[in-house]
């Protein structure tokens, strides 16, 4: 198999990961293995996997049939990710929720925390309380106690013991997984980039559904190697003398709006060189301290630094955002927020302020899972990219 073919086959495996994961979960469930569903990285996968459990993500990214169904019980004017997630569980169209022995929520945003109260009527749930303020002096104590409560709940419910040793091992594994993603983002620093934003997105989404941890490590490593090699040989996604405008995409909940946004940006000739926000570069760059004698403390310390917009104030995000603009030699920022996601929507304005200070072109796209705004979103992205291209080509 040529390098190109091998790279492509790994990409295909990532793309199909979600589809294959439901079969994997079925098998795991039949073998009596424990499957834990969660929505957000604030439900630390380290603790779940240290117990020897599988962790799947239950975030809904589809409109039909989940959203209309959810709207029979939830307000229509709510984030589509929340509605889709709830609707898929209500309508039993989410195989991962079906196979989950327990669902773990976290009090991130208003919509999710209140949706979880309803979900409790449908599934076994544990909700971890996340502080509102990321200041460690004020919040670390409570946050750490919540992680202990979560660990103890798993131990009690499934009659297992989660040792510090297991936690430390899982922390190492997960740090490694994060480092693959961070290295993938590094490939975006090249000019032209060695991977497209669409490819990166595929890998990121697949991350959660590559449940065979060893296979994931092997494929991730090889994928990074091949991407760099192909780029060196001039066989990357762009020709060597091609210099597309470089976009930083910022935001959360993007997987449900890929066709309208991410795919369109690259179809129109721009390159997404990095992602910032949920699953973005900042989380991947910050490992968990492997030398901390208290692994729960180390886990708590990392996640309190996740620069999500639910945190107030979210100073870490702004600081890192400025750095990313420089490091990735970004030509323009596209902030994508989904309907009624107040934290990211309000915070987008703060990113815009930073961009204005730095003469960095900025576009804020608000969209939804529901069809109807594709044309409008495309027109706005197109105008923005044309402006960037004109600027770049002088």
């Amino acid at each position: 198999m040529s390098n190109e073919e091998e790279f492509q086959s790994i990409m295909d495996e990532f793309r199909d990961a979600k589809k294959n994961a439901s079969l994997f979960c079925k098998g795991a469930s039949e073998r009596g293995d424990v499957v834990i569903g969660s929505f957000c990285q604030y439900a630390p996968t380290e603790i779940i996997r240290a117990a020897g459990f599988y962790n799947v993500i239950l975030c809904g990214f589809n409109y039909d049939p989940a959203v209309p169904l959810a709207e029979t019980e939830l307000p229509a004017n709510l984030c589509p990710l929340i509605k889709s997630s709830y609707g898929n569980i209500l309508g039993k169209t989410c195989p991962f929720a079906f196979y989950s022995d327990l669902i773990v929520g976290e009090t991130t945003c208003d919509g999710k925390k209140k949706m979880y109260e309803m979900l409790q009527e449908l599934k076994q749930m544990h909700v971890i309380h996340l502080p509102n303020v990321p200041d460690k002096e004020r919040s670390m104590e409570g946050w750490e106690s919540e992680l202990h409560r979560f660990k103890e709940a798993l131990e009690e419910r499934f009659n297992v013991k989660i040792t510090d040793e297991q936690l430390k091992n899982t922390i190492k594994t997960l740090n490694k997984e994060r480092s693959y993603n961070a290295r993938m983002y590094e490939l975006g620093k090249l000019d032209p980039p060695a991977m497209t934003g669409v490819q990166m997105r595929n890998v990121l989404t697949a991350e959660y559904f590559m449940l065979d941890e060893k296979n994931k490590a092997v494929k991730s490593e090889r994928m990074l190697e091949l991407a760099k090699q192909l780029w060196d040989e001039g066989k990357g996604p762009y020709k060597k003398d091609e210099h597309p405008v470089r976009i930083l995409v910022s935001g959360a909940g993007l997987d449900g709006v890929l066709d309208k946004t991410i795919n369109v940006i690259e179809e129109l000739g721009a390159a997404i060189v990095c992602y910032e926000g949920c699953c973005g570069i900042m989380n991947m760059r910050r490992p968990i301290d492997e030398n901390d004698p208290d692994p729960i403390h180390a886990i708590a310390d990392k996640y309190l630094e996740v620069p999500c917009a639910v945190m107030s104030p979210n100073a870490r995000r702004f600081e890192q955002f400025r750095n990313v603009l420089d490091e990735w030699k970004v030509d323009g920022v596209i902030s994508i927020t989904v309907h009624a996601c107040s934290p990211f929507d309000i915070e987008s304005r703060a990113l815009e302020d930073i961009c204005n200070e730095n003469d960095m072109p900025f576009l804020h796209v608000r969209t939804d899972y529901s069809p109807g705004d594709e044309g409008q979103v495309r027109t706005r992205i197109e105008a923005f990219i044309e402006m960037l291209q004109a600027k770049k080509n002088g």
Partner: protein
Amino acid sequence: MEQQLPKNFEAYAEGRKNGFLKIKSVKESGRNVAGYFCTFAPLEIFDAANVLAVSLCGMSGETIPDAETELPKNICPLVKSSYGFALAEKCPYTYYADMIVGETTCDAKKKMYERLGKLKDMYVMQLPQGVDEAYAKPMMVKEVKLLAKYVEKKFGVTITDEALRKAAVKRNEYRHALVELMELQTEVPAPVPSVQLYKFMDSIKFNFDLDAAIASVHELVAKIKAEKAPKENEKRIMVTGCPIGGVLDKVVGAIENNGGRVVCYENCSGIKATRCYVDTDAPDIYEALADAYMKIGCSVMTPNPRRMENIPNLVNEFKVDGIIDVTLQTCHTYMIETRAVRKLCEGIGKPYMSLETDYSHSDDGQIDTRIAAFLETI
């Protein structure tokens, strides 16, 4: 110290001008002013520091267009209105506040406070996400203490436990007076017209002398008791949900006009929080404050059993015929909770209606029709 007036002062209407002049003179008399938004703000801290605490919640759509230059359109009108008043310098209390205390209640408010922090000296108190987990109480106690420290530093004062306890006694007295007024509505027929009751409870917040405020509540209670009760037996309504100051006329006005009477305001500035007395004999006054404020059954808390326990009790106590759950647009927590309240009301066999509205007038007619239809079914 002489205080500046806002740059557009001359263009303001008479009432607003007077508001500015009134608070300007309070400031010039040397009194410090702190603004607050929410019933979760422990006002005892400000009382104990001899700082005037004034409510800043925006209750008018007038400043929403100003706010929308910086905030998304699709957020709660109260949050937009409040921010708009600050931005446009149209609220005398925000304008003259030496500091503002916010609290991490809902997403939109906590993120709005970040922007407000660029305009004013802003201090945000952290609330737990729910009050029943073990971490909540220590967090709340710590946060009340941190607020006290901030106030001490900001104004160069010392807040002694003794002063705090005294302030709590006084605030309790104020709460008891208001509750006595609210409890008049348990009578059949309920003696106080709905809009009048709400407006009184709202305006009393702006009486800057707590003793005088308490006296005027007592005076009103005595006056109502002395008057002959109205003859007509109106349909007895409980209003629950979001703060309604900005939609008072279109919702409560419509209830009155269609033969209903609000006998119980269960929402924000109503009985829910007012009955959360502080245990002034508790060994640790900070713990007592934390305990009292954690009892507020607000939908930002998860889970929120207190509201669900409170409603049926109040329905009995106030002999309620029907429940109207008022939510402001994009208030996710109260909106999502409407389902639970609806189920609860079905369970106790009481008619229920959920009304989602905002500060505009575009739905006035529709709301009136819906309320009329609802009252007819009772």
